[in-house]
């Protein structure tokens, strides 16, 4: 290897970073970010609450509205169904009580007439 090649090899050989190099670089980056204003993000930090994209806020708001709306509608529907069921049961009971009253009246009339017939038989009315 000639002298030129040896010089190049020495120049491109890997060297360990001096102590404190990484810290100096991070500090320099953070200083640069701070100099740009409060909206800038520091190296290694997560996005701030206020830094989230607008579309995420819109989506979250819409989702909340939908959930609340669906929940309200469901409760309303369930309440209406309960009212309908109660009304139906009341109608069924009324119809049943009316049918019972009709039946009792029919039996009472039948029994009254049979009793009259029996009295006639007992009185000796002609039977044939």
């Amino acid at each position: 290897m000639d002298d030129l090649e040896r010089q190049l090899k020495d120049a491109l050989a890997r060297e360990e970073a001096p102590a404190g190099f990484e810290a100096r670089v991070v500090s320099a980056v953070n200083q640069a970010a701070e100099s740009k204003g409060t909206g800038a993000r520091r190296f290694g930090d997560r996005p701030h609450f206020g830094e989230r994209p607008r579309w995420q806020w819109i989506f979250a708001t819409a989702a909340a509205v939908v959930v609340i709306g669906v929940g309200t509608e469901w409760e309303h529907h369930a309440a209406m169904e309960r009212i309908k069921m109660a009304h139906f049961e009341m109608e069924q009971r009324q119809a049943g009580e009316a049918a019972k009253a009709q039946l009792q009246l029919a039996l009472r009339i039948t029994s009254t007439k049979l009793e009259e017939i029996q009295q006639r038989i007992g009185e000796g009315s002609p039977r044939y």
Partner: protein
Amino acid sequence: MRTVIVGLMAILPMAAQLRLPPGIEKLADKASNVVDITMDASMLQLASRFLSDKDPDEVQAKKLVGKLKSIVVKNFEFDHRGEYEQSDLEELRAQWRGPGWSRIVGVRSKKDGENADVFLKSDGNQVTGVAILVAEPKELTIVYVDGTMNPDDVRDLQGHFGIPKIDLGKGAVRKDGAVKEDER
């Protein structure tokens, strides 16, 4: 004041069972008081569900009604005599002289002008129908019960709902289920 009590109607099922002469159908217009009850099997079942399991009267009624197909009760009260035709009554009686029917009681009173007939329909084993016709000068009552009735069930109704013991004399239903027409 004219009072009309109209029961629950079920026309179609009844058409084949009880044929009321046109003259009888029109009596409602002439009567001062009318009770018109027609209950088919579904209405009887509905009524039965609301009969008490604790009241002895209603327990017996439930037992009887459970096997019935229909009950028809028509009662007309008039202010005057002669509002209905005897020919209409004969047409009714003719229906209950057909196959399976037997008249077990017939009462005639010339003094009061009151006549009564009780008919039973039997298939040989059980009573399958009862018809009662009571014709008074100012009142007409028609009762028609269609369905299976065990004579024991009918007897068990005695004393309930004001139903007296039914002493049908020679017209009583024998234990073997056959029905004898009154021979007196």
